[in-house]
Structure formats: structure tokens, C-alpha cells
């Protein structure tokens, strides 16, 4: 029975009222008294030496308050990196300085050189055009493998070479994996590229720095997924502002997909500038600028080998990946191809031996960091592609090969050979569910129907696993994280019974204001509308780590549950006093406290009022008030998984692929709001289809971005995606968080790309084009046609 409120109910998203009626409050909606405008002069070349940067004439232009260059920032630190990876020889990664403004050299198209602050944006732009800039162009390093050649031009002169790290995992298994592959009955090999993506959230980045001379305090308004993290990184490492003198506000944020996790140079620049010019300084990124200044995603080149025995059981997986870091290390960049990628290379399978090698490379391109899924889509893509290819080579059903190698339901908790322990899962159930939803048994009939219309039909399966909830602080600390990864919540009950929950999680499209309220209301048994969720302001919420890695409900939600439990425990003490009963006999149900076995009861509101008007109150034993804070640090990641199945039709003549159906059968553990979960899957799958079919970031050999606008960078649109069939009825609750939830934010983007590509390859094989083993994403018409025709 669907519920109509609380946990499990599809409550309508309350935040949508303001988003859909145009009364949201995004950073660009904020306009301050005396506000000035910042404009960044950015490099037009990928690699160059600044021979002359003369701002004298430009500084005299109308409306200009100040033009900043690196010379003004000598006291500031570089933009920090939040994760240190240790290479397979035990050495720390090479970590270059990432200056706020270029120091003598530019290293990618879009690298900021100067920041003009003026009365109006147009004046700032005019002045930027008047800056005299002489850059001596240097050879650009674009191709990752070429970047590692001896004698290759270096992106950073002070590093040994362009190799950030050479990482091996699990290093002790290296020889055993080699041996297993050598002795295997069959080895399937695949080389593939995980295409570089530009994140493109609907709202471009914006930052406003506001310095208060009266209080010697700074406020930064910014489009961030984690304002506390920005406060910590920028305050401590860049501008040396103590946290009590720095407030960071991330109001409504229009999508992030990872790209708004990081601390960016522009944030530090406007904050710093606001003190110098003693006025608020606003920077609004244009869409064109976002293409060359938002951290990009993916960009892996991989070779994967899958070894099997005569019974088709997987015996080993070996992968070698080149991961593009771009010109500088963005906040979490080093962790993405390593810990968020290597630890997932067992997938859903019982493969006993896994070895993952990753070479992270500096190039003269925009920095690369997490993008929806972050490392896990890269792992899933190669694994699910190679399993598909193996099934074809062995002549077996791809669903059957997967089923055979899956970890069995009774084998959980399951220790993988890549460090992590999967707490729960039932991959057979999700795969069977997905196959039932697509009517797998009758697929051949649909193939014949398509054939009659002159089209090739194909079906592709992918079964993904991800690690979410990022995660136990002590573990990530050992792995090189320079931050903790708990979450916090403060639950403040007001005297008349309403609640405000201040969470360190940040909502930028996920609907937390609705689903978080459902949880708290359900625990107390009151109406959801009595609970307000507040987030995005370091002055309100306790120190929190923010939203990414599908961690909000699993970690932030758990913190909120813990704080609410404390509230309930204290409220029961108050109730026991008011009801003159012993605390152990007090029960809370439907918003009322009662004494077990009696008809004595008192309402939630009465207890709250007593806590704030403590006339009849056990003051000697209990503090007045009803406000509690909890920090929650999970003991493990969570492991959502699911079967993603795509059906396509290929037009042989033109190479055009149409997606006819897309089915997702997920195990997200317990689900708080099914409608919101379904929406998260829809969005994720749409992005996954975008990656698989349309999106690609192309640099030419000189480091010019050829896909720098929507004229050449293809975003998915409504007509590019089918109606989705989504299910999450297969539930194995997470065992180590109080809600039993696993997280659903990234799943769609992780599971869908291999399903799409597998479907296209399947269609081509069914159509007799058996020479086509692989097509790199995006599987554009031109690429499909070229593959069919061996071009």
C-alpha cells in the first residue's frame, strides 16, 4: 500500500513550487548594495609563457576599480587539492601549484590571467580587452600517452614529468593476476575510451564576495554543493581567513553533478577582491566560460582483460587506465580514477583476483574531476562492456554469463578482492526483474518486427554496483583524503512544536527539503509540513561535508535520524515528568506521548511548549529547550546495484541509433520517496544516454577546445530519451545505517552507458556486422556508420 505521508510516500517536492514559479533564490538573484562586477581575462592558448602583462591603460578605463594579477596575490595560497594518492612504489603523487591567477605561464585554454573589477560588467569586459598581453605560445601537451613519452613538453616545469602518479591496486596481487591471465582458458580483451564530458548544470557558476569592514568578516555567496568544505579550503589554505570570520552561503543551486563540489579560483578571487575594493564583487560565469573553467568529467583510456576458466567462471580482471587530470589537480581529482574506481572493479562478480593500474596524467586541458558517478561509471563501463564481449566470444547468453558469476544472495556480507565489503545485495533478483520488465523471452519477435521495417534491433544489459555514501572518515583518511567524510544535523524544535532541521547536506535539485522532512515527521508522527529543512549556509548548519557520491540520505539523513532520536529521548523525559510516569513507560506514536497500558497521554506540542516554558519542568535534572546536534560517520560505504537494459534500433544506412526502451531495476535499499527516487534515476539515465550517444569534449592538437559551445557539444534533449521503465522493488536494506538506505543519485548515470553501447553492438551483430567489436562513445551516427563499413 503506498503511503500518503512520511517514509515511503511520494510526497510532492515542496521546493518545486518556488523553482517552477520563478521565485527561487539562486546566487545570481542576489544583488548587493554597492555591488561591483568581476570579469576574468582568460588564456586563449593552451600552453604559453606570459612575456608581458600590462594593465596600466586598462586600469584607467571608465568604471574600473582595480585589475588583479598574480602580483596582487603573493600572500595567497594556491587552490588546494583535497586528496593525496600514493603511487604503487609508495611515493606521494606529484602535486603542482594551482595559482588563483596565472603566474608567468598559462596551462589551458581558459586559465585565468587577470581579474577586472568594475562598476558594470560591460566596463569590466571593455577593460579586459584593453589589457596588453603578450603570450609566447608553447607546445601543448594534449594526448595522454604522448604526454608520458621521454622528453615530452612538461605542463609544469617544476615537476619531474607529466605523470601525477602510477597507481596499482591491489599491488600485492599484481603477479597473481598476471599468472591467472596467462593460464586462463579464455581471455577477453577490450580497449576503450571513457569520453570526456563537460558537466553543464543548468545554472552556471556564480560567486559574490562581500567583505564587512565594520566586522572584519567575509561572506562568500557561491554555487556550491558543499559550503562548509569551501569555507575550510578557501579560509585555511588560500586566503588565511579563520572560519569564524568567513561565512559561505550556497543558496538555491541549479544542479551540480559534481562540478560544484570543488573550490574554484574565482571564489577566492572575488572574496579577496571584495576587501581590496571594499565593495561586494560579483562574478557570473557565462556558458561559454563554463566550458573552459568548470572541471570536466571522465576522460579515461583503458585496456581491460577478463580471464575465465572452462566453466566460464571469471578468474581474474586486469585493467590499465590512463586518466586525464588536466592542467591542475582539482579538489578531489586524484581520488576519482583510484579509490572511487579501482575498488569497484570486482563489480557484481565473484572474480577472485583483480589488478587495476592507473596512470594519472597532466595535460594542457581543463582540470578533470568527479562528474555524476565519479570513477564508478568508468569502472562499470569497462567491466560491463568486457563481460558482454566475453559472452559473445563464448557464444553464451550475456544475462546467463552474468548470473553465473554473480555473488550469490547468501554470500553477503561479501569481501571483494579490492578492499571493500559489500554489506547486502541480491543481483539475481534485480537482473531477473529487469529481464521480466523488458520481456526478454520475446525479444527475438521484436528483432523480426524491426527487420521487417528495415532496421536492426539490439538489446544491451548492464548490471552495476557502486559505492555510495562516501564514507567512513578513518578509512578515507588512510586512503589519502585530507578531509573527514561524516555528516551533521541540528534539529531545532520550536516552542509550538514545529521543527527546523539544519543539515550539512546540500540540495541542488535532489529534493532534500521534501524527503528529509518526511523522515523526521515520520519518526515523531507529525505532519511533514511541521518540518522545515535548512541547508546551504555555514552560519546555520553545523560543520558538514555536503552532497556528492549519493551520500545525502545515507550519511546526512542518518545524522538527522540520530539528532531526532536525541530529541525524542529528551522529549520523553519531559513527557514522563508531565505524565508523572516512569520514562521507560513512555511511548511516542502519531505525535503523542502516552503511558504504556494507560489512557494517559500528552501531545507533541504540549511537550515542546513545556521545554521552552519550563514552569512545570524537571529543571534540576534536565536543561530546558529542545535542540540537538548529531554527527554521523558511517562504518562502510553503501552498495546500490541494479540491472539496466536498453533496447535500440539502428538505421544501417545512416548509422543513426534510436533508443526504443530503457529499463532500470534498482536495489537502493529502503526508499524514502519513490517519486523522487524515480526522478533521480530518470535524470541519471538521461545523462548516461547523453554520454553514450551525444556528448563529447574534443581538443585539437594545439589544445583548442573544438566543442566549446552547444553548436558542437551535443547535450541530450527530451526527444533523445525514451519513456523510462523504472523499478526499485528489489530491496536489500543497508545493514549499517539507521534508515537502511543506499542512495540513488548517481545510479542512472553509472548503469546506462554500457547498456546503450551493448545494445548497439548487439544490433550490429544481429544484423550480420559481426566484425564490429566495439564503438567508442558517443555512438554517433558517423561512428556507427564508419564501424559498419570498416572506415
Amino acid at each position, binding site marked *: 500500500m503506498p503511503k500518503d505521508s512520511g517514509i515511503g510516500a511520494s510526497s510532492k517536492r515542496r521546493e518545486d513550487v518556488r523553482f517552477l514559479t520563478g521565485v527561487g533564490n539562486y546566487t545570481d538573484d542576489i544583488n548587493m548594495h554597492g555591488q561591483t562586477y568581476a570579469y576574468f581575462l582568460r588564456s586563449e592558448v593552451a600552453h604559453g609563457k606570459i612575456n608581458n602583462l600590462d594593465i596600466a591603460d586598462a586600469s584607467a578605463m571608465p568604471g574600473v576599480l582595480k585589475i588583479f594579477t598574480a602580483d596582487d596575490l603573493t600572500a595567497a595560497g594556491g587552490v588546494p587539492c583535497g586528496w593525496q594518492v600514493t603511487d604503487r612504489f609508495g611515493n606521494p603523487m606529484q602535486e603542482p601549484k594551482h595559482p588563483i591567477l596565472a603566474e608567468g605561464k598559462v596551462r589551458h585554454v581558459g586559465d585565468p590571467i587577470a581579474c577586472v573589477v568594475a562598476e558594470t560588467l*560591460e566596463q569590466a*569586459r571593455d577593460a579586459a*580587452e584593453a589589457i596588453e598581453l603578450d603570450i609566447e605560445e608553447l607546445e601543448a601537451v594534449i594526448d595522454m600517452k604522448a604526454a608520458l613519452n621521454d622528453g615530452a613538453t612538461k605542463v609544469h616545469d617544476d615537476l619531474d614529468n607529466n605523470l601525477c602518479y602510477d597507481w596499482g591496486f591491489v599491488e600485492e596481487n599484481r603477479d597473481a593476476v598476471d599468472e591467472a591471465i596467462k593460464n586462463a582458458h579464455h581471455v577477453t580483451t577490450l580497449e576503450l575510451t571513457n569520453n570526456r564530458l563537460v558537466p553543464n548544470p543548468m545554472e552556471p557558476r556564480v560567486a559574490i564576495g562581500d567583505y564587512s569592514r565594520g566586522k572584519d568578516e567575509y561572506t562568500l555567496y557561491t554555487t556550491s554543493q558543499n559550503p562548509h568544505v569551501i569555507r575550510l579550503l578557501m579560509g585555511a589554505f588560500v586566503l588565511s581567513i579563520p572560519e569564524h570570520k568567513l561565512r559561505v552561503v550556497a543558496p538555491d543551486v541549479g544542479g551540480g553533478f559534481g562540478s560544484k563540489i570543488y573550490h574554484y579560483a574565482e571564489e577566492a578571487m572575488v572574496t579577496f577582491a571584495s576587501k581590496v575594493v571594499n565593495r561586494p564583487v560579483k562574478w557570473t560565469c557565462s556558458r*561559454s566560460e563554463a566550458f573552459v573553467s568548470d572541471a570536466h568529467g571522465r576522460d579515461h583510456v583503458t585496456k581491460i582483460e577478463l580471464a575465465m576458466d572452462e566453466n566460464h567462471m571469471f578468474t581474474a580482471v586486469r585493467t590499465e587506465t590512463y586518466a586525464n587530470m588536466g592542467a591542475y589537480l582539482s579538489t578531489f581529482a586524484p581520488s576519482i580514477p583510484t579509490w572511487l574506481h579501482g575498488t569497484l572493479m570486482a563489480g557484481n562478480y565473484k572474480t577472485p583476483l583483480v589488478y587495476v593500474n592507473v596512470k594519472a596524467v597532466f595535460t594542457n586541458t581543463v582540470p578533470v574531476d568527479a562528474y555524476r558517478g565519479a570513477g564508478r561509471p568508468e569502472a562499470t563501463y569497462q567491466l560491463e562492456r568486457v563481460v558482454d564481449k566475453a559472452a559473445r566470444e563464448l557464444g553464451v547468453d550475456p544475462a546467463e554469463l552474468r548470473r553465473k558469476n554473480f555473488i550469490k544472495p547468501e554470500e553477503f556480507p561479501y569481501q571483494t578482492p579490492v578492499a571493500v565489503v559489500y554489506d547486502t545485495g541480491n543481483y539475481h533478483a534485480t537482473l531477473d526483474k529487469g529481464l521480466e520488465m523488458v520481456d526478454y523471452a520475446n525479444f527475438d519477435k521484436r528483432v523480426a518486427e524491426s527487420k521487417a521495417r528495415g532496421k536492426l534491433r539490439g538489446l544491451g544489459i548492464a548490471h552495476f554496483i557502486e559505492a555510495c555514501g562516501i564514507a567512513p572518515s578513518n578509512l578515507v583518511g588512510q586512503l589519502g583524503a585530507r578531509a573527514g567524510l561524516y555528516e551533521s544535523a541540528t534539529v531545532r524544535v520550536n516552542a509550538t512544536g514545529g521543527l527546523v532541521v539544519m543539515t550539512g547536506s546540500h540540495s541542488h535539485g535532489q529534493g532534500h527539503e521534501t524527503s528529509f522532512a518526511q523522515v523526521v515527521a515520520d519518526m515523531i508522527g507529525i505532519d511533514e509540513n511541521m518540518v522545515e529543512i535548512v541547508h546551504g549556509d555555514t552560519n546555520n548548519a553545523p560543520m558538514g561535508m555536503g552532497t556528492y557520491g549519493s551520500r545525502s540520505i545515507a550519511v546526512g539523513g542518518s545524522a538527522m535520524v540520530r539528532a531526532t532520536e536525541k530529541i525524542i529521548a529528551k522529549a520523553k523525559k519531559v513527557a514522563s515528568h508531565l505524565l508523572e510516569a516512569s520514562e521507560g513507560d513512555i511511548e511516542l506514536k502519531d505525535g503523542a506521548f502516552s503511558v504504556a497500558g494507560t489512557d494517559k497521554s500528552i501531545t507533541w506540542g504540549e511537550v515542546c511548549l513545556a521545554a521552552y516554558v519550563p514552569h512545570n519542568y524537571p529543571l534540576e535534572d534536565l536543561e530546558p529547550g529542545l535542540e540537538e546536534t548529531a554527527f554521523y560517520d558511517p562504518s562502510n560505504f553503501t552498495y546500490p546495484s541494479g540491472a539496466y537494459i536498453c533496447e535500440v534500433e539502428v538505421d544501417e*544506412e*545512416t*548509422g*543513426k541509433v534510436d533508443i526504443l526502451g530503457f529499463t532500470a531495476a534498482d536495489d537502493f535499499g529502503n526508499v524514502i520517496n519513490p517519486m523522487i527516487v524515480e526522478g533521480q534515476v530518470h535524470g541519471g539515465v538521461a545523462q548516461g544516454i547523453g554520454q553514450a*550517444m*551525444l556528448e*563529447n569534449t*574534443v581538443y585539437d592538437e594545439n589544445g583548442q577546445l*573544438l*566543442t566549446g559551445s*552547444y*553548436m*558542437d*557539444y*551535443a*547535450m541530450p534533449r527530451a526527444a533523445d530519451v525514451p519513456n523510462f521503465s523504472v523499478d526499485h522493488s528489489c530491496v536489500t536494506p543497508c545493514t549499517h545505517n539507521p534508515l537502511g538506505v543506499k542512495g540513488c543519485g548517481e545510479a542512472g548515470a553509472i548503469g546506462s552507458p554500457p547498456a546503450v553501447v551493448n545494445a548497439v553492438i548487439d544490433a550490429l551483430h544481429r544484423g550480420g556486422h559481426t566484425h564490429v567489436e566495439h564503438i567508442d562513445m*558517443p555512438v*554517433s*551516427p*558517423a561512428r556507427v*556508420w*564508419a564501424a559498419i563499413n570498416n*572506415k
Partner: protein
Amino acid sequence: MHNFELVKPTTVEEAVAALQGDDAQPLSGGQTLIPTMKQRLAGSEQLVSLTGIASMQGVTISGSTITIGGATTHATVSAEVAATYPALSALAGRIGDPAVRNRGTIGGSVANNDPAACYPSAVLASGATVVTNSREIAADDFFQGMFATDLEEGEIITAVRFPVPEKASYQKFEQPASRFSLVGVFVAKFADGVRVAVTGAGEDGVFRWAEAEAALSANFSAAAVEALDLPSEALITDLHGTAEYRAHLIKVLTKRGVNEAV
């Protein structure tokens, strides 16, 4: 965007006069010009808006001739020629999105002669006449290569006059990002022969495919095209498709156009 003066004449004569000034340029729907000005890649000191000139608005159908005012939007064209010239209506109805179709105009599109634009193929395949404030230009003389036309400085397209073919079809294969044509083929069958114009593919912009025209004039069937091979020299190679792929698409789309012509 740099500052500029905007003039809003109500007659062609006023517009022509306003365009005599230094650094003046016509502005029609602004769907091409305004974005480039915002990026500071183009711009003039004076923009002369053409959309307030009544004589440049609307569609007149007389016998088998359609005359479309230079400042008529794609949406209006699509609606008004639906019965008389369905292929042209379909072309106009698939340009960009509703916002673009309700601002962008035929004159702006033809004057701009973007190598991937749709209208130039219709103008060329129909053997249409481009009418300006001072003369009439045959389509075959008008298009002069990528973004280049026979228009002189300050000359305005006031109308485009289309003879209506017996049947025609526009086949647009979209470039995945811009949704302009990666290749577009317009096939038009007249009593005295067939014209085939190709957009999106030529290094010199829109062009006629003479071999296909000859073959189809003799035998208007897809089979007639089958035997032809369009060389890929002089075709565009870019990140969305090679010259070879474009050559192949031209043939496929021509055949489809013949099959679907109405």
C-alpha cells in the same frame, strides 16, 4: 555586446538610406546576429531593423508562384505554405526551436548563407529568385560560397520568390549538437526537370548535384540515384562526420527525398 544605435524604419527606402551610414548593418530576426554580438565577435555601430517594414512581411501565393517577404519568420512560412509547398513548409517548420522559428526570418537566413542552414537548399533547388531593393538575383547566381552571397554592401533582401514544383522533399539529417543540417538535401521535380541542392556538406556552402539532377530528370526514382557516386572532394570533414560520410548521406537522403516527395 558593444553599444550600438538601433534604427527602426517602416519602409525599404528608409532602411536603404539608414544603411548608407558608416558601419551600419541590417538586423532581421537577430537569431544569428545577436548571439555573435553578445560574444563580441560581430557588431556594428548602427543596426537597421527590418522587421517593422510592412512590405517585407508575409506570404503571397499567386498561381504557382510563392512570394515570401524578406522579414517573414520561419513559423509564418511554415504555416502559410503548408498546402501549396509542403516540402518548404516542412523545412521551415524544422529550423531550430519555436523561439528561433518565431524570430528568425527567411531574408536573414538566405543573406547569412550559413553552410549548414536549411533555406539555401530550398532556394537553390527551387530555382527561386532573390528579390532585393535594387534587383532580382537568380538562385544560381546568389550563393557564392560559405557565408558569401552576391549581395552588395547595404543591399536588402526584400523577398524571395519560389516557383512551386510538382513535387519536392527536404531531407534533413541533423548535426547532433547544433541540430542544423549535417547534410540536408532538397529535391524538387519540375515539369522541365529535377533540381537537387545539398546543404551542410559543401566546403563552398550549398551546391547542386548535377549528376543526380540529370539521372532523376530522366527517371525520377531512387534507383536512378543508386548507380551514382558523389566524390567526397570539396565536402566538409569535421568532428561530426567525414567528407566520405557526408557523400554517403547525400546519396541516401537524395533517394529518400525521391521516395517521399510530395
